[in-house]
């Protein structure tokens, strides 16, 4: 079957057509130069060349502040009503798609999270190819995560090759068939080729706290938490409860938390299980490169490079990971 090509000249018309099927969100470059996923107004062409948005697409699945329960004296706790508007996320690079695959595995575990499930259900994912820069480490990433999406756009000199992966993706191609052309040359690479090269699984030995690297990293870290905010798979959250002034209602709020913050592992009475910054670094490291709980052995670093770009102290766990994880049998 020939591939489908969307010529550059028709992209505007194609985007307008997409927007009729749901609210279209894509990377847009703001006046401050930063790239953010936001709603695409008619006639605006998103920046599909941009490598990384300021905040990763996790904000659509796990907003930074989110009401997860409401309480009334009469009915007790109940889930809030969810918006059901369909969202089309366009311009997700393979690392961001892999990150969504990771969050899916986390939140659709044994007990699927109802709020996450509702948010995920309304998303249509459209990936797009990219050209990694010096901050990217997707090609080194040992992640076994798929870069799954509904439709993948492979950028070529003349336009975008459309590669549907799900019925939803095929439906988009059918609905916009009049704008697409057959493309005969050699078949386009699979999106998976842009993401990750298989590496041996991480060793299951404990991390050695005596390694001087931990303290060195901890000495330079400012503890600002930007790396976790920018990470597409960092999903630590805390639950806060706010009572209404009427004394009869309350709201439970989910707020992004950060494993590099001191209070992250604190329990009632003030004792913390991760008192030292070096300990907190290892906590983060385990999640990023070894995975925990049901996702043990599934590294959550997808190599997007956001943490390295954002860190004001220029810290990078990656070289350490390469040293520690490469010795695997």
């Amino acid at each position: 079957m020939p591939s489908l090509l969307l010529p550059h000249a028709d992209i505007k018309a194609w985007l307008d057509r997409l927007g009729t099927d749901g609210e279209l969100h894509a990377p847009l470059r703001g006046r401050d130069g930063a790239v953010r996923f936001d709603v695409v107004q008619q006639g605006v062409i998103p920046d599909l060349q941009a490598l990384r948005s300021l905040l990763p697409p996790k904000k659509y699945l796990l907003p930074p502040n989110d009401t997860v329960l409401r309480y009334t004296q009469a009915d007790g706790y109940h889930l809030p009503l969810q918006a059901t508007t369909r969202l089309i996320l366009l311009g997700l690079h393979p690392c961001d798609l892999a990150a969504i695959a990771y969050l899916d595995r986390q939140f659709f575990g044994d007990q699927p999270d109802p709020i996450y499930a509702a948010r995920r259900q309304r998303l249509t994912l459209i990936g797009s190819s990219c050209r990694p820069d010096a901050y990217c480490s997707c090609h080194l990433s040992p992640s076994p995560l798929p870069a799954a999406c509904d439709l993948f756009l492979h950028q070529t000199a003349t336009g975008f090759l459309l590669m549907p992966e799900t019925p939803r993706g095929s439906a988009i191609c059918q609905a916009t068939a009049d704008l697409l052309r057959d493309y005969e040359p050699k078949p386009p690479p699979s999106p998976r080729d842009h993401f990750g090269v298989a590496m041996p699984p991480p060793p299951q030995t404990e991390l050695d706290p005596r390694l001087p690297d931990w303290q060195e990293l901890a000495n330079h870290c400012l503890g600002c938490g930007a790396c976790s905010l920018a990470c597409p798979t960092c999903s630590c959250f805390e639950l806060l409860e706010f009572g209404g002034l009427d004394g009869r209602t309350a709201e439970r709020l989910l707020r992004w938390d950060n494993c590099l913050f001191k209070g992250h592992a604190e329990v009632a009475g003030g004792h913390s299980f991760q008192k030292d910054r070096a300990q907190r670094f290892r906590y983060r490291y385990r999640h990023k490169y070894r995975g925990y709980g049901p996702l043990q052995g599934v590294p959550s670093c997808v190599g997007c490079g956001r943490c390295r770009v954002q860190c004001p102290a220029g810290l990078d766990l990656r070289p350490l990971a390469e040293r520690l994880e490469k010795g695997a049998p």
Partner: protein
Amino acid sequence: MTTSTTPLPARIKAIRQLSGDTSLFTLQLLKQSPTQQTTPARFQPGQFLQLSVAGVGEAPISYCGLPSVNGSIELCIRKAGRVTTALHSAVVGDGVAVRGPFGHGFPLEQYTGTNLLLVAGGLGMAPLRSLLLALLQRRSCFGALTLLYGAKAPDALLFRHELADLATRKDLSIRLAVDRAGACPPGIPSCSVALLPDLLEGLEIVPQRTAVPLCGPSAAYRSLIPPLLALGIPPERIHLSLERRMQCGTGVCGHCAVGTLLCCIDGPVFAYSALQAIEGAL
């Protein structure tokens, strides 16, 4: 609505003060959970639930009593943080909410036919009471049963009247210790002024046929585990319950990792052999 994410309403049925800062709360579930198989009132000793006080928040609490079919739940709670402080100012009849059960409890099925040495330090008596009651319910299934329990002072011993009653049983041996003698309220069963590990001295233990369920603060684990290992108890037969900041209970909030294990779903009860190599586990 699911039992794992949405707390179910319950009412405080009874409050019994056990020590200066700790009380036994008996809750009554007001609704059965929508999925009948799981209800917060049916659990394995060692598991925990999440207790909500509306407008204040939620805290993980270990079960302290026996599973029930009528929706009654016993929780032994110390006034320690925001939620438990609010709870301690509540009165009988007040509403709370619960979700659970969560995590893995003590491996009761492994205990059949073995001798059991239960060791509790301080508030660690709460989950071990749940285990002790479950063991006594099927007493004939287990070998020799011993409870060692240490508290700071005589008036900090939890369930002392119950323990005094249990001490008269011939099929259960109880040894109590307090760090300092202090004021002695009435009804205290006989106890030594000693540290918890001192109670191990002179115990007759068949290491290969004994399992040790352990519950207490980290300091108790650090001081108890070496002598237990020295007695020849295999690390995989020492089962201990860890305290961590378990917020969601379902393994997604990211707060309670111990190495690459998650306390809320892989624990809170772990075999010591699973924790041995993990930095900062105890």
